[in-house]
């Protein structure tokens, strides 16, 4: 299911392969994210979703394929350089710095900014946008609840002014009401023109929020389409649960 890769898209991934020793995590994945678009990648545990995110961010090497951002190849670039080009990753498990204060966590978000003064002003603005973070700015971030940590991780990533935000399982481990908040926040971010690529096991949630969705299973894109094309489509479940599309066999 190799999507055509146009240079007009913000992010274009083509035929991407990632292996860990003999284990193939991605076996030729192609996908695109347009400027300002929200795209979801859903799939079961072990489908290769996190590998995809880590490979785009430069945290794991890809053995084959192409990753282009704004038309330029970024495959093989260091993670420090990729974030400077405008791709920010909020990894699974959030990875806030528990021993640092909330404010220090946010300040690390402006590491990539050339204009530190504007960065500091944005940091103050973020503390007002996220009142809970403002209240706790001097507390160790490790004391925040899961939902608050997710807010902190997203706010920190946004302070680098990315053009593309990569989110790995933002709803993982959060209560439904908190997941609503997080997805509400993603809507706001997108309205500000930041493109989002979100990876979820929580397929219904991602499908409803994203403009387009790719279904990933066993390292391959099995299905892709817009929200209208995929919601209620029986092919979606088949792809998600790993049944061959042409075979038409029932899900186990």
């Amino acid at each position, binding site marked *: 299911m190799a999507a055509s890769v146009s240079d007009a898209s913000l992010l274009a991934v083509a035929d991407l392969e990632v292996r860990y020793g003999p284990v193939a995590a991605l076996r030729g994945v192609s996908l695109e994210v347009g400027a300002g678009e929200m795209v979801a990648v859903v799939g079961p545990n072990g489908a290769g979703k996190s590998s995809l995110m880590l490979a785009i961010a430069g945290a794991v090497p890809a053995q084959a394929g192409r990753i282009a951002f704004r038309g330029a190849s970024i495959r093989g670039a260091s993670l420090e350089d990729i974030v400077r080009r405008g791709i920010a990753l909020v990894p699974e498990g959030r990875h806030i710095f528990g021993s640092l204060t909330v404010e220090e966590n946010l300040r690390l978000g402006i590491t990539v900014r050339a204009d530190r003064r504007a960065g500091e002003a944005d940091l103050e603005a973020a503390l007002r946008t996220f009142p809970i973070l403002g209240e706790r700015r001097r507390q160790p971030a490790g004391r925040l609840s899961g939902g608050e940590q997710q807010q902190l991780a997203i706010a*920190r990533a946004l302070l680098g002014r990315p053009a593309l935000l990569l989110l790995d399982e933002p709803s993982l481990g959060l209560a439904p009401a908190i997941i609503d908040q997080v997805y509400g926040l993603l809507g706001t971010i997108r309205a500000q023109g930041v493109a989002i690529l979100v990876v979820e096991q929580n397929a219904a949630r991602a499908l409803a929020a994203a403009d387009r969705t790719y279904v990933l299973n066993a390292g391959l894109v099995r299905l892709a389409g817009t929200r209208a094309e995929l919601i209620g489509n029986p092919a979606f479940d088949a792809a998600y649960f790993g049944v061959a599309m042409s075979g038409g066999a029932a899900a186990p």
Partner: protein
Amino acid sequence: MNAFAQYAVDTVSVGGLYALTALGIGLIFGVMRLINFAHGELITAVGYGLLLLSGAALPVAMAGSLAIAVLLALAMERVAFRPLRGADPETLLIASFAVSFFLQKTLALTVGARAKGIDFLPRLGEPITILGLRLQTLQLVTILTSAVLLAALSWFLARTRWGLEMRAAAENFQMARLLGVRANRVIAVAFALSGVLAAAVAFLFVAQSGTLTPRMSLELVVIAFVGTAIGGLGSLVGAAVGGFLVGAASVILQTVLPPDLRAFREAFAFALVILVLLVRPQGLFPARGLKERV
């Protein structure tokens, strides 16, 4: 009361040296999970640097020796440790032994293994009396140097951008890099700082001992490593406190042990260490997040 104050001064001056050495080791462990046994060779290099530059004016000799330590630390990182980044802690430890032996043997082959006398800051050996306490000027200088360097390092880590990046890298290196923190720069800054700390220790140590040998820093580094282990590997507060505790244990044992057992003071000190680690294997002040690496 006076006796107590006397012991306190002894403890702080002995412990200060261990604490500064432990901090140099702890900084590198924090960002790289490398226990750098070659830290001792940085101290030794400064000692021989002072000998080499003994003809120059004192500030020049000290600045030159400090530069030697910083450059040697950076070279160690670049040549030996950077290619091994992300390797197991055991591999890194063995590499640091290799660097340590290499430098020791190189020094023995070129300068000679026999002890050399050096007359560095001889006036620090003079006794002075303050508030009824008799002490060496050197003890006072050691205490002041330790206090100033501990304060400066705390300020650097807490208040500067590089300090923040270093603390973030120590907790979760991968996430720090994902935010754009440059791994090479953070690690190089940590090595340079460890060189500065090694130079300070060397100045005090050489002024105290007046002799140089290629193996002169071995005991210091072993004791400082014990300090970092007691304090909790990866925690800088732990490293400093651990260094002082080992100093205190050493002074107290020197006082309370019968004279014929004093030669075995270190054996008793290490027995105490084993006891501490049996009760608290993670050390007294364990660091958070000792998992993700480069």
